[in-house]
């Protein structure tokens, strides 16, 4: 098939842009819902244990935001399920025998679980009794985590493939499922990504709490509780995440050294100790980082725990196997920078807490508010680091991106890309506006959940109008 172009781009480039665009948008929603589903389950458990209404308020408050995010995650996720076939048909044919079953297991063990119990979680509090309702909350949270596990297993196999042979049709045929699922990068990637999701949620929740503290709702119990819980998460989880990130980096150095070269901006090999390049402008054609600000030997110390350890650079790799360095270099720095800022906020909150000024330190609240969406940016930057960093391969070392795409005309891919951009921006833009509107109000005593507002409400039973209207038997008449 002859090569066609659309706006000067060929079909493969357009397909890559389409995948990057749809997956980036999609990834934001689960990054938030994985953490939020667990947070909701914890709030519900704390309410059931303590009977303290503040937890119920918070549950109902965040449930409304969860429902919107979840719906956007579902619809953008369905798109992902079909994108492999529409734009990456050759990849689907060849890698299908290995990754198809993993994705089928994601549907069977996670998607149905989330979807099946979501209705009960959102609308069923007074229909099924507290025990089953709690169970539904846990199942939804569990579903989000199981989903992440399978999809990261797929991604890890594409990054560090093993446990297969290649048949006469060029298909990857599984030899050992254990090896396919548990590739060397999988545990690191899973831990790093799940933790990122929890941090992302903690900072969004903390940001909303900070907003209402700044507005003078110091005595609103719900606001205090959410800010305090979020800051505990930041203080405890941010350092863990930095440790996990470091471990993940070392694992990448072992299995995908070229990616690390791009992350570090190492165009040249350093036989006796590589510097850590803090900032600079990577110039791939010239093969150097311009205006580099660097600390001698530090990169060797971090990566090899030895000041004088030799490190290879991109000059040891053929040009056509280099990933786009600038994107990886910058995305990596954004992610790491945000990670350390998160740590800073966490430590600051500990100091404020120790001084009994957690709800009074307005500079801390301002910092937490600004950092509210930072997790989402870090997650995307991390995703770009790992995905762009593994280019030019879809299956690392075995299948080139260039050889993975569908036999499509550039025009078809280009027009659908434009449709995705226009529709995602407007539809999900509206969703984000609705979400911000909800966040702009503070939680209140007698907070009414979805089940009490003009909104989706269910069957003809006299129950289900929130905690402030208790019904004796919880059964329909």
């Amino acid at each position: 098939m002859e090569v066609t172009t659309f706006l000067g781009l060929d079909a493969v480039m357009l397909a890559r842009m389409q995948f990057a665009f749809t997956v980036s948008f999609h990834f934001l929603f689960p990054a938030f819902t994985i953490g939020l589903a667990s947070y909701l389950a914890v709030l519900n458990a704390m309410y059931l244990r303590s009977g303290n209404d503040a937890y119920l308020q918070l549950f109902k408050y965040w449930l409304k935001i969860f429902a919107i995010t979840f719906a956007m995650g579902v619809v953008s996720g369905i798109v992902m399920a079909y994108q492999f076939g529409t734009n990456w048909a050759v990849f689907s044919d060849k890698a299908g025998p290995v990754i198809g079953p993993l994705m089928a297991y994601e549907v069977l063990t996670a998607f149905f679980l989330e979807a099946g119990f979501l209705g009960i979680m959102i609308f069923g509090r007074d229909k099924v009794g507290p025990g089953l309702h709690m169970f539904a909350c846990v199942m939804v949270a569990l579903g989000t985590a199981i989903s992440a596990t399978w999809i990261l297993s797929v991604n890890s196999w594409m990054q560090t493939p093993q446990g297969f042979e290649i048949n006469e049709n060029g298909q990857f045929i599984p030899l050992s499922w254990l090896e396919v699922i548990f590739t060397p990068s999988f545990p690191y990637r899973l831990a790093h990504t799940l933790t990122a999701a929890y941090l992302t949620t903690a900072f969004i929740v903390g940001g909303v709490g900070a907003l209402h503290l700044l507005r003078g709702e110091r005595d609103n119990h719900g606001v205090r509780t959410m800010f305090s819980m979020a800051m505990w998460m930041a203080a405890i989880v941010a350092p863990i995440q930095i440790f996990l990130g470091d471990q993940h980096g070392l694992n990448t150095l072992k299995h995908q050294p070229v990616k690390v070269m791009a992350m570090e901006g190492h165009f040249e090999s350093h036989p006796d100790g590589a510097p850590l390049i803090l900032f600079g402008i990577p110039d791939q054609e010239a093969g150097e980082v311009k205006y580099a600000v660097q600390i001698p030997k530090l990169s060797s110390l971090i990566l090899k725990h030895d000041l004088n350890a030799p490190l290879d650079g991109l000059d040891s790799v053929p040009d056509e196997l280099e990933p786009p360095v600038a994107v990886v270099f910058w995305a990596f720095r954004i992610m790491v920078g945000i990670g350390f800022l998160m740590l800073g906020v966490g430590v600051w909150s500990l100091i404020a807490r120790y001084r009994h000024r957690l709800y009074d330190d307005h500079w801390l609240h301002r910092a937490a508010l600004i950092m509210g969406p930072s997790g989402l940016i870090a997650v995307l930057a991390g995703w770009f680091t790992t995905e762009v960093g593994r280019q030019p391969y879809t299956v690392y070392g075995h299948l080139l991106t260039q050889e993975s795409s569908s036999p499509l005309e550039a025009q078809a891919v280009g027009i659908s890309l434009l449709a995705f951009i226009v529709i995602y921006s407007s539809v999900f833009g509206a969703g984000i506006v609705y979400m911000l509107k909800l966040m702009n109000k503070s939680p209140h005593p007698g907070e009414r959940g979805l089940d009490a507002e003009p909104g989706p409400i269910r069957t003809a039973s006299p129950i289900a109008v929130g905690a402030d209207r208790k019904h004796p038997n919880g059964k329909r008449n």
Partner: protein
Amino acid sequence: METGFDITAAWALILAVAVYIYVVLDGFDLGIGILYPLFPGKRDRDLLMNTVAPVWDGNETWLVLGGGGLFAAFPLAYAILMPAVYPLVIAMLLGLVFRGVAFEFRWKATGPFSNWLWDTAFFGGSFIAAMSQGMILGAILQGIEIADRSYAGGWWDWLTPFTLLCGAAVVCGYMLLGACWLNIKTSGDVQVEARRLARILGIATVGFIVAVSLWTPFLHPEYLGRWFAWPAIAVTAPVPIAVALLIYALARSLTEGESDWRPFLLVLALFLLCFIGLGISMWPWVIPTQLSIWDAATARKSQIFMLVGVLFILPIILGYTAYAYWVFRGKVDPDEGYH
């Protein structure tokens, strides 16, 4: 096959069952979206929405299982089919985006424009998704050009009068399912209107079934042989006869109205027969006359690995799905949620 048990055929059956469950479950909630313009009042529309709000997400997951299952069990068929019907798949996905978010956004809308916007998104998204699904079915039936493990046709090949007919048929069928679902979940004026619509849509759906059934055998000589040559006709003839009996029963239950559930169940049976009819036409092709299920099948090790999961997990899924429907059983009260 080396063993007595043909695991590839089992996978074809599993996929067919998943797609059937998808069609009947998401069928009625897409149908409700398409029926929206026929219920102009805000109160009625709220009610329509509420009949499916707690379950639509689970219903749509069967579509992911259908697509994901095709990818997993028959990756080559998936790789050929998706580029062949590319614009239809994109249209379907974008349609589903609109209607999926409408479930949540509609209640956040303040002001006439945003109300109108999300109502339209719900209708338009449902209609486009249903139409695309029908046209994809038609495109598969009419055949897809293949060369060297990939799609070899043009990117408008799917657009023919036959695929348009299939699209319209699916839209009409989903509307019928939606109307029968409303007959179960509502009372009063809305139920009366739903029943009236179901009678009209029942007649129209039967017309579409007849039209598609008469046209299909002439798409390929092979289909023709299945349906009209002896001795195959002895096996296939009961299908149209059963369809005729079902139509009679459906017409009776809709006019007499003694049971809210019966019309819905009869439509499910009607759709099941259509599925069996499709199966008779297509077996054992996954892309008719080009690619058989065995040609497209994934590695045996992959089939076995997944089969274990399906045998253990699918019954559990069906169990909690049924439970979720049970929790939200009964008619939806139009006055609830607004005080």
